[in-house]
């Protein structure tokens, strides 16, 4: 296991979560999404929001954009699809934490943001390029200005009524977990008392075609940890958490709904798109998170795996889980919710963190769907319908292109 540096020595005991919200292909809010997940539904369907004709695979998990109350049609027309997903998710989280006033604006005029994305407002960048190539010079500024990630930050700040420092992490598919971990780092260092942490990702042609070109998309169902898995299903969505120091939450009378007990992150230098098959770097991230949480592996009751359903990812994950949990592995329930909502890339870590928190809140565990012939290493621990959380901790892990690994440990208050 890598020693030393990441995952820090300072305790996360004081980092609490007071609200969360999400938009996913299964629903426009947390409750709808969670109920559908527990029922074992999948959002797989034909992609209509971006052009995919000619790709090997044309199916995925597309989200229905929620209504944006209080935002004019003209303003909505100016928002990128990414902002259309991020805004309602952030608003839900802030409302859940009780930090919105009666007009829907933040009670904290300066609110630190820790956000993740990989493709930002890419559809506008694509439109810009297509227009340039076809000599159409109309409205170029409005297209290119909506592309960069900091414009979605501006949209969040403008529509939810706050300003302040922001970080946009782009560590590929581990970014969401990194954004949450970074928010915890800010709180434990005393750089902030309250942070809005989240991630968003909208489907776009460039990324869809990219994964299609790698032949990483399963033409049939996405089957994480199945012997016959053939690849992932792309999805889109957004999720946000309100994170605070416990002192801050108590002082303002907020209900503490969960704790982020541990965060670990490592970089795997094995290959640009494939994880180390031994799972050692992921194991390092998980061990760091557990150490910071002060928990033994046997305290983990549910593990929301990255589980992309690619041959290399799931194999490396299974190896890492076996090394971390050893004989305790059979007592852990594991599922990858990507079979239901798709791989939401920069938003994946944040959506899966929301599912971890919902699991802690309800004791329900989302079942592993689509997997009919599980790999032997995990055959006895993939979550089944009706499984209940029987241990105090929930672990969520993510891996990304470029070797980013991140692990988050959540516990009840």
């Amino acid at each position, binding site marked *: 296991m890598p020693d030393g*540096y990441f995952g820090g020595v300072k305790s996360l005991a004081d980092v609490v979560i007071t609200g969360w919200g999400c938009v996913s292909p299964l629903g426009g809010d947390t409750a709808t999404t969670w109920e559908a997940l527990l029922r074992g539904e999948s959002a797989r369907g034909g992609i209509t929001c971006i052009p995919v004709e000619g790709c090997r695979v044309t199916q995925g998990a597309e989200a229905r954009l929620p209504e944006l109350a209080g935002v004019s049609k003209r303003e909505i027309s100016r928002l990128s699809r990414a902002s259309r997903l991020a805004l309602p998710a952030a608003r839900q989280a802030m409302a859940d934490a009780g930090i919105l006033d009666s007009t829907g604006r933040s009670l904290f005029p300066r609110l630190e943001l820790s956000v993740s994305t990989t493709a930002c407002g890419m559809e506008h960048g694509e439109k810009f390029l297509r227009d340039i190539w076809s000599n159409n010079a109309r409205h170029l500024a409005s297209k290119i200005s909506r592309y960069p990630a900091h414009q979605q930050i501006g949209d969040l700040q403008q529509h939810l009524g706050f300003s302040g420092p922001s970080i946009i992490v782009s560590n590929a598919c581990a970014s969401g977990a990194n954004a949450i971990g970074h928010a915890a780092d800010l709180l434990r260092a005393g750089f902030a008392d309250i942070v809005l942490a989240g991630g968003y990702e909208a489907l776009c042609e460039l990324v869809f*075609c990219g994964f299609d070109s790698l032949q990483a998309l399963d033409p049939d169902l996405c089957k994480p940890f199945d012997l016959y898995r053939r690849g992932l299903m792309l999805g889109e969505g957004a999720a946000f958490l309100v994170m605070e120091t416990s002192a801050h939450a108590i002082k303002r009378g907020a209900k503490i709904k969960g704790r982020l007990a541990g965060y670990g992150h490592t970089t795997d230098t094995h290959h640009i798109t494939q994880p180390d098959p031994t799972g050692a770097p992921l194991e390092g991230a998980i061990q760091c998170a557990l150490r910071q949480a002060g928990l033994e592996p046997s305290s983990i009751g549910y593990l929301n795996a990255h589980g992309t359903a690619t041959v290399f990812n799931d194999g490396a994950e299974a190896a890492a889980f076996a090394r971390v949990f050893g004989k305790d592995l059979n007592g852990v329930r594991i599922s990858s919710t990507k079979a239901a909502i798709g791989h939401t890339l920069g938003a994946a870590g944040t959506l899966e963190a929301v599912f971890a928190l919902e699991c802690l809140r309800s004791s329900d565990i989302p079942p592993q769907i689509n997997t009919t012939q599980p790999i032997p290493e995990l055959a006895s621990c993939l979550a089944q319908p009706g499984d209940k959380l029987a241990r105090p901790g929930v672990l969520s892990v993510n891996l990304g292109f470029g070797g980013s690994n991140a692990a988050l440990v959540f516990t009840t208050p």
Partner: protein
Amino acid sequence: MKNPVSILSFGLSCPGGTSLEALKDSSIWPVEFVAEAGRRGIREVSRINLSAEPVNRWRMKLRLRRASPLSHHLIEAITQTLEARPDIDPARVGVVGAFFLGCLEYSVRFYKGLSSDGRRFASPILFPETVVNTPLSHVVAELGIGGPVYSQVGDTSCWVSALRTACLWIENGDINHVIVAGAEEFEPHLLDAFHSLRWFTKRHTLRVAEGAGAILIGRQTPSAIADITRIADGHTFRTRKQARTAGAECLADFDPSIPVIETATGWIAETASSLLISRQTIPVSHGPRREGFTASSAWNTILAARQGEHARVAVPHWGLSQNIAAVEISHE
């Protein structure tokens, strides 16, 4: 920030070369005339010749053969930073990269390919190189860097956000040394974007440049090149009018008696000039104004750290589209 940090070493790659002298004088930088930029107000750019020494040393490295120019700029700057401190083990160093444009050249090439040849013929070789964190991934793999690694995006000011992340890791005791790097690559469509956004006008001419800069920071130590003693971040704006307020708020965080490094380019230069009218401003480079976004932020930080005239200086990082931030660099 809670505690000051020290700048322990630095590295850079700019169109003029890899030395501090080359960075100081942009009049000696090669100039390329972008033929496609016929209708645009700005046509001159300064680029890095990746086949020239010393930056060509990365071309035959297995992992970097197909990598974007951005990866090459970044690895050169970070390597110099590490080479200057052989006493520090790269395996125990973290890296935070700041990027405004990211892997633009390969992203445009990839999208052009699928648009012209058909989606089924999109290049599986190019796609991974379009991902924002790929350049930093190549760098840490090649140099054996073993600490935490973040790639952060934003406008020019995201360099300060990256610096803040590095300070945070040091503050929390996660790691003792962190490299903060800014890097950008040029792609001709940038000029279309800048032209349509009216960022650069005839009154605010400048030369778009590419390259990278990096600093290695650690806990405050007397043997350092300079210290970073204050960070102001999160002064956001959506309109040019709001930018003036954001800039004023940001500068108000700094002692009015300390000089401010001239760093503004493009449309915000006028705003900056009016806000700095009562302050002492100092140039740190000669020649035409150059804009390399996060690379410029790194370069300006390096130049401010290496200037010997003033005990303390403020270095503003004027984001052109969302945020204004600044850092104070001290030799006291």
